[in-house]
């Protein structure tokens, strides 16, 4: 049956309505920003920020700061995911290891992110390893919880099929378990991604000479509020770029078999 498209409000399609609303939201933000600039002593005007943005975009050093932050994010996230995957697998082996690891999950779930960043600074000093560890530790419990849920929901009938057809352990992981757990893995990735970005910049503020966080610190030290706003905007662009440039296309590719079902 073919769905009949109903025109939305004002005779516009739903997509056009959504774009118009987004545009309206941005315009209101700019208006509030301009008013804030006019009636405050410190908030830079949108035009000043624009000029500074262009200036920073022309400087090659800007990109190396962004690349440094992205690299730390990906390594930290990857490390957290790998650690969580191993621990989650070990927790599946029996009640002893499950009880052994439960406190680790609980502690890392509740400990403040800032405290983790400070611990990492004290232990690893100015080394970049501190950033990786901070991100990994913060991401770790969210991933373990999601994976545990995924493991609990593995389809026993597919496991039987894999046994009968004598899949090797790697085939069972690669062809059965990982695709089955993908919804949980992507849910964990989505939940932890934005959080990981925040941890990256916090630890960079404390311990790094490069990266977006280090530029926050520099702007603060020189009281360059306009530059701080520019780096916040760059941060937002970097987060969206990774989300829409890496994770969303990846997720779309992994779940393309589901799109097939929706069409069918």
């Amino acid at each position, binding site marked *: 049956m073919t769905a009949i498209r109903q025109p939305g409000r004002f005779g516009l399609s739903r997509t056009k309505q959504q774009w118009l609303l987004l545009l309206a939201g941005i315009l209101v933000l700019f208006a509030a920003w301009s008013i804030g600039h006019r009636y405050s002593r410190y908030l830079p005007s949108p035009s000043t920020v624009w000029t500074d943005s262009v200036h920073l975009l022309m400087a090659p050093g800007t990109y190396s700061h962004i690349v440094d932050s992205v690299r730390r994010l990906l390594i930290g996230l990857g490390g957290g995911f790998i650690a969580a995957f191993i621990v989650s697998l070990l927790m599946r082996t029996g009640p002893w290891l499950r009880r052994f690891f439960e406190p680790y999950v609980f502690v890392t779930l509740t400990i403040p992110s800032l405290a983790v960043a400070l611990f990492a600074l004290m232990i690893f000093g100015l080394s970049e390893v501190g950033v990786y560890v901070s991100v990994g530790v913060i991401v770790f419990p969210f991933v373990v919880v999601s994976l545990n849920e995924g493991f609990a929901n593995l389809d026993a009938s*597919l496991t039987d099929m894999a046994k009968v057809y*004598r899949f090797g352990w790697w085939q069972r992981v690669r062809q059965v378990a990982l695709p089955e757990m993908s919804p949980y893995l992507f849910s964990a990735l989505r939940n932890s991604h934005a959080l990981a970005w925040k941890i990256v910049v916090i630890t960079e503020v404390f311990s790094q000479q490069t990266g977006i966080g280090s530029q926050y610190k520099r702007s603060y030290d020189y009281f360059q509020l306009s530059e701080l706003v520019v780096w916040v905007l760059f941060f937002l662009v970097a987060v969206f770029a990774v989300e829409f440039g890496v994770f969303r296309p990846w997720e779309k590719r992994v779940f393309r078999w589901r799109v097939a*079902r929706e069409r069918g």
Partner: protein
Amino acid sequence: MGGFIDIADLTFRYGDAEVLAIAGVDLTVQKGEFSCIVGPSGCGKSTLLTILSGLAAPETGTVTIEGTAIYKDGRRTDEELPRCGYMFQDSRLLPWRTVRDNLNIAMKAAGIPEEQWNDKLADLLRMLRIEAFADSWPLNLSGGQRHRVAIARALAIEPAFILMDEPFSTLDEVTARFLRTELLDVWARTGTTIVFVTHSIREAVFLADTVNLMTKGPGRVFDARRITVPRPRTYEDPNLAEVEGAIVETVLEAWGYYDQDVVTEETAR
């Protein structure tokens, strides 16, 4: 004894259950035979297949395949279980892999040389008339097409025998009839030994060389009927209806339906 598959005095129980799931099953399947197992729900006919596939171990009894004891006195021997294809009630394809990948993954696990995969895949898909769907996602196929892919997968691994657990019970009757005919066609061409579990006597007499009848649970095989009606068979064949009628008569008594009627009449009085 002396068949391709010989089962003697097999018993099985789930976990610590007080009641056995199967109790003393004796069964022989000849090489290349289409052997059906018919029994009421809960008699343990599917359990028998899980033991034959190696998914579960019996409590007691002996299973010999091609002269090699796989289980002896309830214990797994060191002998390797011959490769078996398995068709479940549902197709159990990996929905995130294409038809081609589903077959290739099974062939890889079975150790079929990679250079043979393409030819084998093409042959099987052509034989089962699904060659147009080689690169389709399983969820884009109909139930019948998915079952054909599952048959292709079972055959692709060059099995010593194929186990089928009520594979057509979830399909509509027209599709199921069509697939039964195709299955017989494939069986005739490949000569594979098939052990087919069903609760439908009509399905069993249409397909089988031998119909093994099981008692109510905990089940055992109490009768093995050789079906001599010549192939190709049709559902309308009066000879087939006669065989079916005789088996129905036998199982009504064995499964206790006549006793139930008596009890009901007595209770009514």
